[in-house]
């Protein structure tokens, strides 16, 4: 490839600038978190005495342990169930294709561009009538339903692309539908499943609206919802708010950095297929 030196330099500089723009807000958050509580520090000024204690205070004020546990519980409630039922439906609609599968699939697609705000008001009253307001179920159950359009479409797209011969061969060997699914198709679906799992994990972790509306106790919310509550309570104490925000961000960042390749792949596929 012919690449001029000037172009490479320009490209590298551009890339570094973009990365700086991305990272500086995080740095600013960190520096601000080290200032004296209750002050309004300006710019990226390093404090005379860094108040590392802000992180301890924020950890206690935000009740971080309880928040993490709550988010984990919600993830456990949402992701495996949503994965399972979406896979079953995707297998049926994409591979078995029973009569009416097109209608069913299109009905699922209806919900694909639906912003959550469009259904939040009735969801609130539905949850109230079920007596589930202010419990984690108020986040878990609707999320499973709300993920279905994307998840079913995703898994269907995967199973549609599986070669027919594979199943024919298995059928001839006398395998029933169940065996066909568990022995042949499921093992081949690991990449699709893990990407979908990562996406749903992230969406759940970062879900804000449902948490804010349906659960008032921050220790029963998702991480994003808890951060919203933290802001609502400590928003006027900027250094403490920044320390708390960083703490709440940290688990996500750690998980991301460990599984970064999978995350990037999942998000890209999510956008492309989506």
């Amino acid at each position, binding site marked *: 490839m012919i690449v001029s030196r000037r172009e490479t330099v320009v490209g590298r500089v551009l890339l570094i600038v973009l990365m700086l723009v991305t990272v500086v807000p995080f740095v600013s958050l960190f520096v601000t978190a080290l200032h004296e509580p*209750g*002050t*309004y520090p300006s710019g990226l000024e390093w404090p005379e005495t860094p108040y590392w204690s802000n992180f301890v205070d924020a950890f206690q004020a935000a009740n971080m342990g309880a928040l993490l546990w709550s988010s984990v519980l919600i993830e456990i409630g949402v992701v495996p169930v949503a994965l399972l039922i979406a896979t079953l439906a995707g297998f049926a609609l994409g591979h078995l294709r029973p009569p009416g599968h*097109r*209608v069913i699939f*299109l*009905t699922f697609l*209806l919900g694909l561009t639906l912003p959550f705000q469009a259904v939040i008001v009735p969801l609130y*009253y539905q949850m*109230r*009538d079920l007596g589930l*307001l*202010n419990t984690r179920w108020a986040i878990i159950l609707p999320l499973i339903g709300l993920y279905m359009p994307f998840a079913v479409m995703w898994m269907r797209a995967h199973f549609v692309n599986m070669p027919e011969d594979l199943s024919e061969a298995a059928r001839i060997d006398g395998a029933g539908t169940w065996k066909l699914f568990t022995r042949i198709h499921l093992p081949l679906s690991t990449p699709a499943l893990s990407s979908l799992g990562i996406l749903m994990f992230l969406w759940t972790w970062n879900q804000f609206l449902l948490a804010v509306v349906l659960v*008032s*106790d921050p220790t029963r919310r998702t991480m994003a919802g808890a951060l919203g*509550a933290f802001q*609502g*309570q*400590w*928003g*006027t*104490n900027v250094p403490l708010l920044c320390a708390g925000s960083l703490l709440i961000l940290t688990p996500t960042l750690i998980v991301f950095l460990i599984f970064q390749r999978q995350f990037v792949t999942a998000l890209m596929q999510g956008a492309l297929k989506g």
Partner: protein
Amino acid sequence: MSRTSGTSRRAVATASLALSGILALTACSAPGGSTTDDSTADGGSTASGDFTCGTDDVTLSAYIETGFPLATALFDEFSAQHPNVTIDVREDQFAVITQNAPRVLADDPPDLMRLPQVSDLAADGLLYDLEDAAAHFGWDQWPGSQLEQMRVDENGRRGNGPLYAMGLNFSMTGIFYNVELAEQIGMTEPPATLAELDAVMQAAKDAGITPMAQFNGGATGGLAFPLQGLMASYGEPADINAWTFQQPNATISTPEYARAAEHLQRWVEAGYFAPDVNSLDYSMMMSRFIDGESLFIFNGDWESGNLDTQMPGNVGFFLVPPVEDGGEVGAMSAPLTYGISARAANPECAAYFLDWVATNDQARTIAVEIGGSHPMGPADAFMPEISADSVTAQTLAAGATIGEDNGAMEFIANATGAIYATSWTPNLQKLVAGEIDAATLLATVQADYESQIGN
């Protein structure tokens, strides 16, 4: 795909048929039919008329405003005196509480809650009726003006009817000034007229000091404070009370109030507020004032205790001066309102707490020293000693002046449940941005007020 477009069109048709089927299934009954019984009735709780906290362990749930230590200090003292009572506290900023109030009272009922304006909440049956408690504790023997803002009649108007909330104390607003800065620009005593106040602010501006660091950002239109102060100087406090209590045909779109709003607009145009007034929040304002960056703040005596601690001897207070020397003055004065959800688990114990706050000597001391404002309760009740040169002493004295002039007003932001968030705040922000003028401000708010009352 084009090959199958015929099929897919048919499929779409069938799918929408299926959807309309679901629609038909759900659409058979109107919302809000059967599920509402317990929330409109007087509560899931059974009032026994025994207004104590008993001797068994009780946990009161409380939902309070962040940033003000008074409630927590009272809770601590109460728990110390009543070891069987634990108080479980949730805190939010006032704007968040305002947004959450109806939802929390109905579906996550606290025993004690910091309340915004009560008329809608009471009319919707979300608040515990405190009439029995008032009779039991003798609250009806107190000066009537302390409680009238929390009484709501059957038409949802305030001023009369059953009592739906209580104050932890009652506060009053005016102008705090930085004594050092005031001396620097030659202000030796509080201005006696509005013209003098204008002159002082101009002097501060000329000296490079922000004359008034008012907050007006986000969901909090803090310019309502100076506006109301000006309204009281130009007009009659009684007319404002008629408006805030939703009396028939009350209006703020009058020539007197237009003059007051124009005066505020002149302050805006003269640059007497900070240039970023539309993004300043309350605590930023406090921080700037305490750091000596501005001469004035328009605020309430709930900060007196705090200011006495943070800048001792360096703070003064005065009421918004009259148009002409010697004229009558007015001030916003309101109880720090706390109520009990109609569905609260421990309403009697919560009511007992509210009485304790007004009658216990220790609690009254906390109300003054930490809260900065006058305690609720009988006129001759115990008062703690306060150092004469503190700003707390000045605000309490100003409270007495207001009492003599009959100048106490309910806050214009409390006229309806939504008027502050949906009308005052955005319109005051528009006034600052120069998008509307003073007359339009009042006319718009009046129109919103009428449509909200009509609701």
